[in-house]
């Protein structure tokens, strides 16, 4: 057990950030929950931060292209954890049959980013907890814990605010903007899995190997490829990650579509 004492420090830092965001934004704060391993870990940290309750709503950005296992998982834990769930869909775009056939960049942008923008406006959210991590992608590695998005949703990555030590963040923003709060920024993939094991968190079974393949990162069904793997338990996943030199999001199409795709998506407000 003592091997994983360092997880306490990661956890405590995340809880500190969640509580700072709540102190500032109270009812204007929400958490983005995709039911993936990271945002489920983040949701667990929120439950810990508020001593068992979840006082903020959980938003699911539903593109309509998710796996059925994801929806089952969502419905089960919405009840079990007494969540206030907001399912956000871009109905107009779905009616227009937006899909990857119209281009991955546009598809992500319209079904995820625009949907997010709609739900923020509708509910008046000022800050969102988002479960991104530095080690997922070199663009995400450049993020701050409290990251501002302007009215047009843009990320001004050339002029990010100063954050110092573990205590001080720019938690306030002006009108017409919102903050992305990233409490998991300092966690690595392996830390997430060790924590899931330690805290006995539930995960979508797509992460576990079936017929020699498993999903290492889960998004929309059309843009996600499983990896070859025999890891059918959390212990085996931890062991696998320790020895792999394949990157976590290797199965995610939107990262590979073209040069700087992630930077362009993120600068327009993608998660």
């Amino acid at each position, binding site marked *: 057990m003592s091997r994983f004492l360092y997880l*306490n420090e990661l956890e405590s830092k995340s*809880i500190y950030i969640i509580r700072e965001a709540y102190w500032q934004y109270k009812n204007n704060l929400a958490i983005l929950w995709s039911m993936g391993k990271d945002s489920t870990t983040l949701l667990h940290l929120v439950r810990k931060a508020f001593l068992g309750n979840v006082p903020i709503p959980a938003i699911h950005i539903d593109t309509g292209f998710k796996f059925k296992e994801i929806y089952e998982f969502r419905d089960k834990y919405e009840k079990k954890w007494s969540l206030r769930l907001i399912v956000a869909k871009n109905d107009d775009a779905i009616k227009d049959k937006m899909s990857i056939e119209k281009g991955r960049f546009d598809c992500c942008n319209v079904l995820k980013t625009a949907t997010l923008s709609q739900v923020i406006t509708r509910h008046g959210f000022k800050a969102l907890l988002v479960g991104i991590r530095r080690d997922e992608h070199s663009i995400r590695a450049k993020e701050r814990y409290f990251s501002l998005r302007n009215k047009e949703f843009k990320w001004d*990555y050339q002029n990010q605010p*100063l954050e*110092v030590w573990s*205590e001080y963040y720019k938690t306030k923003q002006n009108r017409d903007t919102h903050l992305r709060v990233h409490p998991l920024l300092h966690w690595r993939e392996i830390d997430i899995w060790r924590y899931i094991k330690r805290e006995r968190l539930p995960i979508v079974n797509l992460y576990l190997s079936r017929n020699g393949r498993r999903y290492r990162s889960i998004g929309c069904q059309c843009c996600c490829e499983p990896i070859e793997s025999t890891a059918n338990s959390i212990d085996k996943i931890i062991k696998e990650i320790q020895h792999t*030199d394949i990157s976590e999001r290797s199965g995610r199409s939107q990262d590979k579509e073209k040069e700087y795709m992630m930077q362009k998506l993120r600068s327009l407000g993608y998660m």
Partner: protein
Amino acid sequence: MNNYLKVAIVGAVDSGKSTLIGRLLYESGSLHHGAANDVENSCRLLGRDFEFAYLLDSFEEERRDQLTIDTTQVCCKSKNGKEFIFIDVPGHRELIKNMLCGASYADIAVLVMDILKPIEEQTKLHVLILKLLGIKNIILVLNKIDKVNFKESAFVESKKSIDKFFQSIGLEPGYCLAVSAKEGCNLMDKSKETPWYQGISLFKALEKYSGKLPDTHFCFSTQDIYNIDGQKIAVGPIISGRIKKGDTVKVLPSNRKSKIKTIRSFDKNKSKAAVPESVGLILDNMESISRGCIISNSSIPKLATEIKVKIFCLVSLNIGQKVKIKCLNQDVLGQINKINRIWELEARPSSPEMMLENDAYFAEALITTDKPLITEQFKGSNSLGRFILENDKEICAVGIIS
């Protein structure tokens, strides 16, 4: 497993900081295929050879213009299984805010210098910032030894001048290494290219250090008060030390003694807790406990309305200027009352009427506050010994309590 060591890689523009980290990732086998492919594609598009720096410099603008704009962090494992977080920072003076952001997380620092150049102003500024932040463990890397044909004389000469600078500010680098980040020389193991070199490799040097140890006295910072089923609970992080149910503690600023009735963590009660846990505390008397209150069992945290500080300013600040002081979760108004000394790279004439119209300088000042502030003397990493000043919602200075 211990927590990983956080290492800031600092130094002037073009000294090779990002290249060094990229090369360390590669040499230690910490590189993912996807990341290397991304860099290869990008280099092909720009018509350049493989650039290790692009593993860190991920923005289009950074790669195109070959500079680091913002700080980033990556993980790396040594052969012996020890883990490091490398923090890359920009070297440009205009980007000093981003350097400060990255460096503030570090346990130790690696200072990278171009062996071909005399000590640059930015190098000195970075070292002075490390000193203020309490980062005393510094590994000196004299980089680009390949550019001088791996000659000992260049190394000796460069080392002499940097030693002199370190002496003048009262610091001593832990190691001084001859390195070529580009060629991977003396990074993992000693290189055959430098047979004269008596020192150790960078990874060997890094493995000698461990993280900073927190203090032992109990100290808890109140972030918020949650009301759960009619019960008020003070929530926040344990900054140092440990606590048991039933312990007597002191609440600051009221100075009232109280007993720990309950320690809450998640949905259950605990009998004890320790740094770095974030917990909920219920005391015998929850009256007048609010955000910013410090709960402690020690006489080290003190109340003061006048504090003597050393600050690093990002904008010009005047005597008499009103500022907001934030120390942990305390938030008070204050005023810069007196400035005893200003220095940038060299000392400035003493007792100026007003700080100069310039950014990025250091000052020794006296700050008065409108409400008592709970602080401790800064000893290297204690949170109550350091603070920020805010002006118009922006951080305008970081400081330590002298």
